């Protein structure tokens, strides 16, 4: 099965005071058609930057400094802006964190829907309005036809995030980059939005890169999980096996601190210390200053990716040579 999205050796640099810091370092992963990949990691791990790179929306001071991004077998990171724009919103859509600020406050949601639809699909205004109303109905907004004339401020946060979902699904994309789509919402509404997102994706076979802080969300909706740490992928594997038996010490620490994980910038209860920032990179394994099981070589040699069962793990403990020797 060839992947819908294939990120290969992605490297993103951020220029700061004339120096290039590496924010994303040699990140590779794939998302199959219709698959939901959860992406987790502490604040600042590089989840949003990775998603932004896939959307082709990196902006100064950040830039892609290496690697390739393939969508449906076609390389997209080298496309010119016009070609990439035609893809954005049509094949690859996005849902961002804050529904309160994702919508233009001066435009009705109907106009925002139809402008998106008419940018990508060859429909006349009446057909676009028709489609917009249908979309609102599908995301569970009552009286959709009347709601087209509403402005964002006339709706609650949950309703607005439904509108954002309608916008994301408006042109039947094959991949959605959802960057913490429920973090800004009331806890009581988070589950509804998540269920809606999952239901719509399953129905249409839409793949999702779902960035979240919430391991509970991962357990519930993700098919596979990618764990990021300090700009690198440390473990990627099927949700079930990752939750049951994570191979990487960092992933295990994450699991142990599940209830607290959504509290940002709080040190992980089970892992003392804090993640290195891009401006102060750590040699060897980036996790070694905090790792309870660090080996001598971890401080100087960067672990490659080893295959453990169905997972990919970047940790020397997973080195088959070492394991067979032990």
């Amino acid at each position, binding site marked *: 099965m060839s992947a819908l999205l294939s990120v290969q050796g992605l490297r993103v640099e951020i220029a700061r005071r004339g120096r290039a810091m590496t924010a994303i370092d040699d990140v590779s992963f794939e998302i199959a058609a219709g698959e939901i990949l959860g992406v987790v990691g502490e604040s600042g791990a590089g989840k949003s930057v990775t998603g932004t790179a896939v*959307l082709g*929306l990196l902006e100064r001071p950040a830039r892609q400094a290496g690697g390739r991004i393939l969508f449906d077998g076609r390389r997209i990171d080298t496309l010119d802006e016009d070609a990439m*724009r*035609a*893809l*954005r*919103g*049509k094949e690859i*859509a*996005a849902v*961002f964190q*804050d529904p309160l*600020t*994702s*919508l*233009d*406050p*001066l*435009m*009705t949601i109907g106009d925002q829907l139809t*402008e*998106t639809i008419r*940018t*990508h699909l060859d429909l006349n205004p009446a057909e676009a309005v028709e489609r917009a109303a249908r979309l609102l109905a599908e995301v569970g907004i009552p009286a959709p036809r009347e709601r087209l004339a509403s*402005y964002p*401020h*006339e709706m609650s946060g949950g309703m607005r995030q439904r509108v*954002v979902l309608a*916008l994301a699904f408006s042109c039947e994309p094959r991949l959605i*980059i959802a960057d913490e789509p429920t973090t800004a919402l009331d806890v009581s509404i988070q589950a509804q939005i998540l269920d809606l997102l999952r239901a719509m994706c399953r129905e249409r076979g839409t793949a999702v890169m779902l960035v979240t802080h919430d391991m509970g969300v991962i357990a519930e909706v993700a098919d596979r999980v990618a764990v990021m740490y300090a700009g690198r992928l440390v473990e990627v594997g099927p949700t079930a096996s990752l939750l049951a038996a994570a191979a990487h010490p960092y992933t295990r620490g994450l699991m142990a601190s599940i209830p607290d994980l959504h509290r940002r910038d709080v040190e992980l209860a089970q892992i003392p210390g804090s993640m290195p920032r891009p401006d102060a990179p750590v040699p060897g394994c980036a996790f070694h200053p905090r790792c309870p099981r660090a080996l001598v070589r971890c401080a100087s040699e960067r672990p490659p990716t080893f295959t453990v069962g169905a997972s990919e793990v970047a940790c020397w403990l997973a080195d088959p040579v070492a394991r067979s020797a032990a």
Partner: protein
Amino acid sequence: MSFVLGRLGQTVLVLLVAAFVSFALFRYVGDPVNNMVGQSASLADREAMRAALGLDDAFILQFARFVGNALTGDFGMSYRFGQPVATLIAERFPATLELALISMLIATGLGVPLGVWTALHRDHWAAQALMAASLIGVALPTFLIGIALILFFSVWLGWLPSFGRGQVVAIGGWSTGLLTTSGLRALVLPAVTLGVFQLALILRLARAEMLEVMRADFIRFARARGLKPRAIQYRHALRNTLVPVVTMIGLQFGNVFAFSIIVETVFQWPGLGLLVIQAIQFADVPLLAAYLVLIALCFAVINLAVDLAYVAIDPRVRSGAGVRRTA
């Protein structure tokens, strides 16, 4: 609708306060009787005058009479010119209003598009040159700009007149210089002089607001929706930029009136500014009081216009959600 009514109520209140200040000025700065009958009048004459003016009546009654008279345009006689204040002002007001409006029109018409352009082309050499020029425009004193323009365009090139208003045409009591060539030519230098500072200010604010809006989440999301740059820049970013820019333009009108006094002096422009300078020199209190009320009225009208512009631009104001941004 209730929003507009509320605003109207506020406007009336502001005007009443202005009227009160100007009444207090009229009543208590100097002795009105002294000013009118002169030093040589007898005590009996003075008493008769006091009674005629109603100066012995209750304070509230006097204020009510002042407002009543003001409403009919009666602000009394100018001490200095011996003419009704209303007549004097009616003669001069059109000149100042035309000067102020045209200079604001120039400043807005150039400032907003140039500010937006410099925001969208930050690295273009012309954008950087404009930013540098706008700094100079903000810093240069108005009278210096006026004198430099006169020197260049009137004295050296001889293209434009350096003083006066040119030929005016009266249309129903309003004397306009906008309908004759000489009137328009006379307007160019003063209007530009008055507008330079506003132009620079509006340009810089429009640029700053545009840059800020371009960083907003909804612009990022609009990009993620694959909208064309034109749609993002003009349909989304520009409209959001206009909300604070309109506010500032409204507020700046006050400055324009203040600076017009300088410009009218430099260009011998026969407007209210020149009249007021004379009124101040001669402590012509009725004239000053009327000027104050008139300026307050202008402010009130402009504020109302700004509020109506809000209603047109921002749906949040329309529904009274009150997320209004004020500069």
